[in-house]
């Protein structure tokens, strides 16, 4: 069943079309990627789905209910980790629960259960600046998960990390996803990352932003490290590069 659908979304700003007639869907437990060059309107689309921005036309539905322009329904992780420097990791992570109405102590109890699973044990009382980039990203992802366990939108979640940390994070991310089965829509302009993590890839082209093609990555999960250097992987990559050249 479709978890989340966005139907015929168009947004213009100052008379310029940013995205035009975009329709995408996300199934339960799926990881789907929006891949495209910078300026293709990917972030704008996320702002619409998260409810921060009202589209000119189109509708966003979550579990069949209309959530167009309604914030707080699907969780959203922005490019930066955006952990608040003045809160400890546990307080940062439990923030969405507090916003949702839980008391501070209750929120902490709920949040602390996930620290082990997310590989964050021992960081509860630390401040963000005391953590490495990878750890901060894990904390941000846990916060995103606690915000909504239905659907998560991740805007270039790993783009700020160095290559080695990034590769470790991919592995970690896939293993966490195996357990929590969070339906995820994520943005990237890293082709390898898109192929490695996604079940499906929407290729976006810009000015105005449109979905050019949809690619299904059939490689079963969990995916091993060897997948990245396999022939299937290279074939996917060739296919994607061809589409990008053609646009």
């Amino acid at each position, binding site marked *: 069943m479709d978890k989340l659908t966005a139907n015929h979304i168009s947004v213009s700003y100052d008379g310029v079309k940013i995205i035009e007639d975009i329709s995408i869907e996300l199934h339960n437990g799926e990881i789907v990627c929006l891949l495209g060059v910078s300026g293709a309107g990917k972030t704008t689309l996320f702002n619409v789905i998260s409810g921060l921005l009202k589209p000119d036309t189109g509708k966003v539905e979550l579990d069949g209910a209309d959530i167009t322009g309604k914030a*707080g329904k699907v969780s959203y992780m922005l490019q930066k980790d955006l952990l608040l420097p003045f809160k400890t990791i546990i307080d940062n992570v439990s923030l969405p629960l507090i916003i949702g109405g839980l008391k501070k102590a209750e929120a902490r109890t709920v949040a602390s259960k996930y620290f082990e699973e997310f590989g964050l044990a021992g960081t509860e009382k630390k401040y963000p600046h005391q953590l490495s980039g990878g750890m901060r990203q894990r904390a941000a992802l846990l916060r995103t998960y606690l915000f909504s366990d239905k659907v998560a939108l991740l805007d270039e979640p790993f783009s700020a990390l160095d290559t080695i940390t990034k590769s470790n994070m991919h592995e970690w991310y896939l293993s966490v996803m195996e357990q929590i089965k969070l339906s995820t829509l994520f943005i990237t302009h890293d082709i390898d990352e898109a192929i490695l993590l996604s079940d499906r890839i929407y290729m976006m082209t810009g000015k105005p932003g449109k979905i050019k093609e949809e690619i299904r990555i059939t490689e079963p999960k969990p995916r091993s490290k060897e997948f990245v250097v396999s022939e299937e992987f290279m074939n996917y990559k060739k296919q994607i590069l061809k589409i990008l050249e053609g646009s």
Partner: protein
Amino acid sequence: MIKKLQSIINKVSPILAITIILAVWQLLSGTGIVPKFMLPSPADVVKAFFKDFNLLMHHAKTTLVEAFLGLSLGILLGFIVAVIMDRFEIAYKAIYPVLIITQTIPTVAIAPLLVLWLGYGILPKISLIIITSFFPITIGLLDGFKSADPDALNLLKAMGATRMQRFVHIKLPSSISNFFSGLRISVSYSIIGAVVAEWLGGFSGLGVYMTRVRKSYSFDKMFAVIFFISIISLLLMMGVGLLQKAVMPWERGKAGGGE
């Protein structure tokens, strides 16, 4: 090693400078190059301070109470004004120039008016302190609110946070550092404001004491009270610094590299 030496020099140099000034001063008035009744020696000033110690403490109490009340109300006013100005763009545009204008009026010019309107009691003192101390607080808080990360605010919006929740979780903590910068200035303003207001009339307070010793040409006591006032201000500013460290635990150990 060189770094260590550098830090020792950094710490010692101001002490050295003060010592030299005091030594030159002692030499000038002690040897009679400058007549003693015009410029008492540092030793005389210290003597005068301890001779009048109890009296000074009594007056200091009045001044500190006024400063404390005035500053508290100033902070409260500053906070309210800052919140309103941050919340409503129109209020910001309307109030900001007025705020600047109030700061161009010299304290000593409005103090006599306040005494005429409000009498010789504690009211004109507190009013003057509020007027002088709320401005740095307001500006500090406003800058702090505006420094809040717009992406963080958006993130909370996406979480469905209300305006109030966004204020409490992001804007307020973002403003603490700027608030304390403002408070450090306001604390010294509040002492100065109290003393200036006391000059113009009152029954006790360091300003009243100052006026009395000036009229009796006791320059040693005059200097003693001046130094006393600056020491009080310095101690209060240090207190603000300690308070800031206590309420901003996340800033601790940042400079030394977190990891």
